[in-house]
């Protein structure tokens, strides 16, 4: 049994080394806001991927609005995803960005933007900035974008990112989106990207007459429906739009 003794002390030392300190610091969010430099070759490769994304994932699925297609071709999505996901930036799906949030699937972003029917005269409000991608897409089309993020670290990172990418018509605020952004109201378009089981009454208030509001509903990784709220002469109507065509019966296929 004697060799056992020295053996177990070895085990003990290993175990003490293995037990890590669990108070490891959170990753610095400002690091995430820095625009990553890519070589011209890399940038042109991203551009190619982006154009392919618009063709295959967006145009073929029925998005026709030229301004939306152009915006999707312009915004560098790879700058909005976490470093570990750059290679997946132009794939046909949502990507996690931390804090339980995602950057939506490109098609969903395009579809929501098209539903808003905005022009270069419009002002838009976004609740849930996340990575800032949706705000950037809107900023390519509209006059001004106001976006609110409740999670401080995400909001600050998005603000830095949008600033570095020279989106000067976007304003980011870290606040509770429930109250909207009163001082710039009313809005032509409101996007609520934070999954909600209710739509805050102040947001409906801040919607311009004939304005449109879009809310995606479902799991962070699978939008099951989009709620489109419209205001006409003070009267609210709403619709559910399925991002995909679902046929309820097997026999009718």
């Amino acid at each position, binding site marked *: 049994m004697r060799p056992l003794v020295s053996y177990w002390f070895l085990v003990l030392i290993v175990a003490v080394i293995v*037990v*890590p300190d*669990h108070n490891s610091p959170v990753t610095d969010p400002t690091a995430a806001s820095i625009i990553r430099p890519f070589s011209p070759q890399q940038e042109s490769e991203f551009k190619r991927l982006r154009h392919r994304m618009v063709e295959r994932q967006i145009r073929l699925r029925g998005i026709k609005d030229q301004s939306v297609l152009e915006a999707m071709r312009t915004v560098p999505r790879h700058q909005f995803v976490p470093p570990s996901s750059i290679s997946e930036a132009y794939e046909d799906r949502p990507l996690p960005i931390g804090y339980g949030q995602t950057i939506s699937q490109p098609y969903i972003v395009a579809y929501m933007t098209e539903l808003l029917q905005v022009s270069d005269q419009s002002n838009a409000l976004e609740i849930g900035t996340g990575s800032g991608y949706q705000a950037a897409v809107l900023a390519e089309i509209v006059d001004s974008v106001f976006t609110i993020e409740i999670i401080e670290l995400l909001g600050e990172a998005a603000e830095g990112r949008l600033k570095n990418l020279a989106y000067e018509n976007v304003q980011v605020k870290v606040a509770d989106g429930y109250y909207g952004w009163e001082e710039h109201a009313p809005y032509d378009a409101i996007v609520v990207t934070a999954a909600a089981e*209710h739509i805050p009454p102040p947001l409906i208030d801040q919607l311009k007459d004939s304005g449109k509001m879009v809310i995606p509903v*479902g799991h962070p990784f699978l939008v099951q429906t989009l*709620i489109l709220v419209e205001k006409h002469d003070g009267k609210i109507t709403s619709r559910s739009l399925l991002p995909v065509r*679902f046929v309820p019966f097997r026999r009718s296929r």
Partner: protein
Amino acid sequence: MDRPAWTIGILSFALLAFEISLMRILSYVQWYHFAYMIISVALLGFGASGTLLFLFRSYFLRRYEIVIVCAVVLCTLFMALSMTLLGIVKFDPYRIIWKFSEVWSLLYFYAVLFLPFLFGASVVGLTFMKKPHQIGRLYFANLVGSGMGSIGAILLTYTADPTTLPTITASICILALVTFLLDRPRRALIASTVPVGVILLVVLWKPAIPEMSEYKSLSKALLLPRATIVGKRRGPLGMLVALDSPALRYAPGLSFTYTRRIPSQLGVFADGEWVGTVIDLQDTTALEFLEHATSALAHRLKAEPVVLTLGAGTGSDVFLSLKSGARSVTAVEMNGQLIELLKAVVPDRRDLLYERRNVVLRVEEARTFLSGSQDRFDIIVVPILEGFTASSAGTQALFENYLFTVESFSEMIDHLQEDGILSITTWMDYPPRSSLKLLATIAEALRETGTDRLNQQVAMIRSWGTVTLLAKRSPFSESEVSAIRGFCEENFFDLVYVPGIRPSELNRFHRLEEPILENAAGEVLSNRRDEFLREYQFFVDPARDNQPYFSHYFKWESLPYLKEVYGTSGVPFFEWGYVILVATLIQLGSLSLLLIIFPLFFLQSKGREKRRISPTLLYFGGIGVGYMFVEVLMIQKFILFLGQPIFSVAVVIAGMLVFSGVGSFFSHRLARPKTGPPMILAIVAAAVIGFTSLYLYGANTILEVFAKLPVELRLTGGVVLLAPLGFVMGVPFPLGLGRLSGSDASLVPWAWGINGCASVVSATLATFIAINQTFVAVLVIAAIAYLLALVSFGGLGGGMAHSSRSGKSSSN
């Protein structure tokens, strides 16, 4: 009892307690279904120990003592360090469908949790091989230890922080080591136990807390401004947390016409998932929003009703009833810890909803309450089942839900006054699944009352976010129908179905591209129902007590279509629970096959051994499958009798294991030459099938009797019901192992491995079959498995070699 039996018993206690602790911890940091998959795979450590022992049989037997000491020490260490080791790697289960690299993290999780079971089970298996003459007593200790371990773990969840549980179970392993080394030199005792003890202290000193998944509601709520945890309660039903933040508001499916304030509320979470909000009763003007949700409909139709709320939770619906003028509300909530939490976070007793004069709180399960109560109500309310995102991801598919079955709704209808209303609210889902299944299930319950006016007894409305279904014993009156129309008009809600509905009334406010739900509701209420259910893309057939999986909507036939529409990576989000179950089954099946077949390549080609291969496989596989199928069936059925899933798990696992231990102890005495083992086995098979059928088909009678009993007697009654079943099921394993060790001892570890693999695979397989078929199918397969074992017994060899005992591995 002698020392080896004590070692086995204590170690088995620790292993089972560890398994149950892991389930609690992983359900908290991830989700139940992911926890289920990871632990099921890890439990194959039992099967793998058989393979290991088979391959190194003579080597291990020669170095018996040192091998046992090392295995117990390694088991202890891996148990103690499990949380720390898991914390090193970040695992995001959702990404696995896209990113292959996540597979490595998953494999790492498997490996970390597999090792303690492998080493622990090796100790048990090796002791069986070393002391075949004592196998009855050893197996008795193994089963009884495991049974006590399951109860011990559940008791521990009340008192200890879940993250410290593995360290506690590891300390119990040290105790097993001490019993083994007691009559050996003191040096050995000190050398083996002291360093391990020091490591345990180090782990306790810096306990590792695995990070909760960032997608859980609680993780997200904690990121809200000024989020503070104001209360916590732990217990076997989960870790309850109350969280306060000025940005936390909850108003499911609220009408767009509501323009006033939504107050911030206190949120309550169970295992990190949303439960409900605690309403501030002082802020009454702000609470008007509750009246602008579909769930408020029933109260519009009844003045001063006597109300029953089933699954009252944090009490929002109880408050709505009181606010709408209810004379009294009986609130039934099974989670006692939740009530304690509410009492702790509401400082002024007068503000506590459940202490109000006209509120009667009953802490019990809804079905138990219904069976035991003679009262009748004007309105019975069943609030929304689960959180918002949980419902959209289908995480509940693996859970038995005895509240949403035809039998349960029949009971509710029986408890309505002649003119009473049953009101159930669920999330609006796109495409419709839960809303439709709810309608189909309630319609079936109404049909069973023999009504010919079904079309006049239901009404269903929807907002953009929620659906509320009303059902009555008698037809809706004209004034009631017009009140429903008025309520919808005023709130911009849509009629899905009311008696006499006109096509022009459909799809007016919240418009759907195609009114799928409305059209489907018409079909479900018509006589074309069967054809509709067959053709619909999701499984929305009425849920029943014998297939109580309300949240299971997946149809294999629709898979190609769903893949086409939502993409391969989109499909799992419709029903994670089911996808994980299938994935678990595939992994367990292929790994087990590997573990069982692999040793055969190392068999020396002796004709004698070869002849025993199929009988050994059939016998030990058969009793493993049979045992687990019956156990899973009993756990699922006893939920209904005992009222709470956790009671069922505790009573069935502990009861069956302990009584099987007793059965094992007496097995050799039963098998006298006169009666003969085959005769005993035939009696065993007949008794298993008989008792199981009795509990399955006599369920309603048992439930009625049990509902009248206090909890303690109900638990005792449960144990009494299980005693004969457990006893007979403990007999076959020792009988077979005794026979095999007499004829071909080298196959003993292989048999141990087969039994371990079969037990683990069939625990999952039984659930899978219950979800897809019914409990009856599970019973039939269990019967076939026992009969197979019976006929293959003769092939295990000639006479009995040693006295023997017991029936299945203690892996569950």
